[in-house]
């Protein structure tokens, strides 16, 4: 398992937002976490990425106990994330967005002098990554000038530049047009297949999740109510019930 949580728990006031969650995520797979609003998906994400500290339980990533680690340390051991609201550096060029992450990965972000060779190598790698997300040719544009779908792709590309073993994606399809959704979905699959990256997705678009995922965890009221491949989830009675009152059809 590349990512494993043990009895992860977090309360807000008297409410248990996440309750004894045991998540086991296999490498090189697309693993989705779904559930109705208020199921605790976002809290779970924040617990894993150290934005909030758990009341109990722990998080193991790649054999290391990373419970409560700050974001910058997680990035150093190759755990990346993308954000629900697209999060890129608007005023910097597309290329620079990627180069920042590459330099950070290489531990040279505080240097004030790079050899021409190093700079070229970084640029070459950045172009290569941009090619993977189909942003080649937009290197010099400001990130803020990109269309919404392309910004999301850039967001993912920044994560890729960290050479991650795992990327957590917080609603990568939210607020996208139908065409953009397809593009991003294709991109996600391609990352798994060509780079062997593990991808954990929190997503509302259940239909897309069913198509994309290798495995799905369903949460409700802070508990995990099902954890299985898509085909089994489809037939799971508890999941049906959980979604009965929601607006989703499976």
């Amino acid at each position: 398992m590349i990512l494993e949580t043990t009895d992860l728990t977090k309360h807000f006031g008297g409410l248990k937002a996440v309750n004894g969650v045991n998540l086991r995520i296999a490498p090189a797979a697309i693993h989705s976490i779904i559930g109705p609003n208020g199921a605790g998906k976002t809290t779970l994400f924040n617990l894993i990425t150290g934005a909030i500290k758990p009341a109990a339980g722990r998080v193991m990533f790649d054999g290391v106990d990373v419970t409560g680690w700050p974001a910058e340390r997680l990035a150093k051991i190759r755990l990346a994330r993308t954000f629900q609201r697209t999060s890129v550096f608007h005023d910097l060029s597309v290329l620079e967005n990627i180069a920042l992450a590459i330099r950070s990965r290489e531990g040279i972000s505080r240097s004030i002098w790079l050899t021409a060779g190093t700079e070229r190598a970084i640029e070459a790698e950045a172009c290569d990554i941009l090619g993977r997300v189909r942003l080649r040719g937009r290197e010099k544009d400001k990130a803020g000038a990109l269309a919404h779908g392309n910004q999301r792709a850039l967001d993912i590309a920044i994560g890729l530049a960290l050479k991650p073993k795992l990327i957590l994606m917080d609603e990568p399809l939210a607020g996208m047009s139908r065409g953009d959704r397809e593009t991003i979905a294709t991109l996600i699959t391609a990352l798994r297949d060509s780079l062997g990256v593990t991808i954990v997705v929190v997503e509302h678009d259940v239909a897309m999740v069913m198509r994309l995922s290798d495995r799905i965890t369903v949460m409700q009221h802070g508990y995990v109510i099902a954890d299985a491949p898509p085909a089994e989830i489809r037939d799971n009675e508890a999941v049906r019930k959980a979604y009965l009152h929601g607006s989703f059809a499976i």
Partner: protein
Amino acid sequence: MSDEIATMPMPGTDRRFTGLALLAAAALGASVPLWTENMPFVLILASQAVVAAIVALSLDLLMGSTGLLSFGHAAWYGFGAYLTGIAAKMLTADVVVLLPLTVVLTIVLSAIVGFVLVRQIGKTFAILTLAFGQILFALVFVLSSITGGEDGLQGIPIPTAFGFQIVKPAVWYWLLYGVLLVALAGAFHIRRSPLGKAWLAIRENTERARFIGLNVSLLKLLSYIVSASLAALAGGLFALFNGAASPDLLNWFESGKVLMYVVLGGVGTIIGPVIGAAVFTVTEHYVSSITDSWLIYFGGFFVLIVIVAPGGLFGAVSNLWQRIAAARRGMSA
């Protein structure tokens, strides 16, 4: 040739033009002592403007890179002035020793203060910088046996360099101007370096910067230290140039002025605050010779700028310039 430039907007042409303009401006600045021989007073004013420009640049290295807003930047300027002045009286008048000493001690103190400060959110940071300024201001009076208290630090000896005394106003001007040019070159270099880019990333999106593995606190601390050290260096130079230091250097009015230079010139533009400082210093001199109520005009102008042109006057002008240039390019294409 000029037609070619106008009709063929090659990439790099703009840059070359900007480079030439900067070179011309730099040469003009360097020539000041040559045409002010009969106006010693103008040369002194110009020297003061250069010092102000260095301080403005130092604040922009903080505000313009990591986005931290300091309301007590005069604290570091004044700290440098007093430290250098006192060391000059007690230790040596050799600038080769004095200025590095000032910078090193500033690095130490700003690292300690900055360690706590940079971990605060924007508003708390702003409040604490103002408070820190007032604390150092108060320190001048606590240590009045050394600092001279209300009367200021008097009798700073004439500094020497390699055995020669630095006396001539023209030499002073070139010394200060040289420091400004070196600091500017350094600032531009850093802006393009990984460090400068990482700073900009923090200013723009701290959360994202953290998740690409940037150590935000450390990077902010670095910019705070660089900024404080350059301000202290400017203060040290000023104390030696002026031969005295007054507690007014640490006053919050002074911090306000520095902030004004940067806001007026456009935060984060590096060159804007430098020009802002020069224009402002000269204006202040002439306005305050006409009227006593300089602070009223200053405060009023400050309020007006924030409301009307938050990007700074030079920011507004350069925006306009870029738009005109873009329109022309659009028409010729």
